[in-house]
């Protein structure tokens, strides 16, 4: 029997939780890009807050 050690188990457990968090961040980024939110933020940053419609 080859049992996972405590360190490997901890890495697996926290690694998967972290990976799902990264998936959420990626999905949020993709959706923001899709609705033009990222472009609006970039435009606002470049123009110092004068966001053109």
């Amino acid at each position, binding site marked *: 029997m080859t049992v*996972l050690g*405590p360190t490997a*188990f*901890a890495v697996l*457990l*926290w690694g998967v*939780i972290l990976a*799902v968090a990264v*998936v959420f961040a990626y999905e949020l980024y*993709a959706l923001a890009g899709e609705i033009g939110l990222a472009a609006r933020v970039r435009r606002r940053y470049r123009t110092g807050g004068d966001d053109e419609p």
Partner: protein
Amino acid sequence: MVTTEIALGLTVATLVAFTALGVWAARGRDRSAEAFITARDSAGGGRLTATLIASVMGVWILLSASEAGATFGVAAVAGYAVGEALPMLAYSVIGPRVRAVIPDGHSLTEYAYARYGDAMYAFVLLVSVLYMFIFLAAELTGIALALALVADVPQWLTAVLVGGFVLAYTGYGGLRASILTDTVQALLVLPLLVVAFAGAVFALGGAGAIYDGIAATDPSLLDPTDADGFRFGVAIALAIVGAELVNQTWWQRIYAGTDGATVARSFRTATVANGLIVLLAALFGVVAAGNAAVENPATAFFALLGEAFPSWVVLAVTLLALLLVMSSVDSLFNALSSVVTADLPRLLDDPDDRTLTVGARALTVGVAVAAVYVSQAAQSVLALFLFADLLGAAVAAPLVVGLFSDRLTGTGALASGLAGLAVGAAFFPFPLGIGGALRSVPVVGAALPAPDGLYLTSFVGAVAVSVASTLAFAALSDRRYDFDRLSNEIRRLDDPAPDGGRVDGDEGVNES
């Protein structure tokens, strides 16, 4: 302990909010039957990925995925995750191909009819509808069971509330409403998964304490090479792949994507996302087995919740379970009604759009009522689920190969599917005395092998025979199918083909 009133209040508030969102999404939009079941070219990469995640992530991830982890350990956990990821990877190739050869299509059954004829169409229709309906009933059973365990909510009340509210927005807004609500649900489900599971790790004293609990209870759960876990893991992976390849939910979303490249990219992203989510959920079955008094592995995760968890974690998981159910149930309502709606122009005599729209909505209502009823009558659907998976595993290869090979005939496809099913069924451990009855049949019963309680022989047999037979029929055939027939015969509902896309047997296959 979360009170019944708080759980019910949270449930109703969530259901009302998403019903309003779904109705809002459909207001002022195209109300044709075509839009109701396809939402063609409407979803960009972000929304398509979100709906690919939300549609399949039902409450089953907290029940059956956890059950697999609690019973068979990390080897089965890996199998479950791989099984859930592989169909998405397959669709990243199949999706663009489907859009290329059937640009105006709606469903896999109309493809089966046009490509292979009546018999294969009937087989695929049976398999697809059976699988999706069992999935639907299992979801309603699962959320009813979960809320009863967490807050003593009567099971019939949960099933009726969830079924009723989801029906309201899906019946009104169709696929467009489903995709929008799926998007919001995915954005809530993903962080809730992270918060709930991370909260559970802290509540149990950290990864080290959790590990000690598992090692003391059953160290074989931590063995990735455990034979039973590996056998079950491979079987469940094959079962899921086969079943998802006949799931109409994905065919609808192939057409909902803005273009083929977006579809391929979204399915690839969903491969990673869905694999990770199931890995996390199933891993918590292992955690539960070692850190809670698990009397019934099917509710291992909820048994873990009962172990003096803070109320906020319990509430977060309750909300998570509800969102998971809504996101898959709305997709399944619409997918089930779309399978039949896409065939109505062929079954009825030149119906107008109003007839098709009313038909699609009536079918959605019918599916919802039947699913709520079955969810109350059948408290355990695991065996049925696995048999539906077996049907999918048998029929998937000829369906997919027919998209790429012009040599496979309808007869060859049907024979391959039936051969795979026969071998898989011979090893399948049928419940409710069905296995015993089969084995008591003279001659046939004596020839049947012993059933495999871990399902591996059954699923490997079904897939191997189906694939080998499909490839053999394609290699030996001297006929050629003209793929242009698919785009000519399968048309939009508002632009039906003169003959309704009818193909008799191998009529569409020409001698080379």
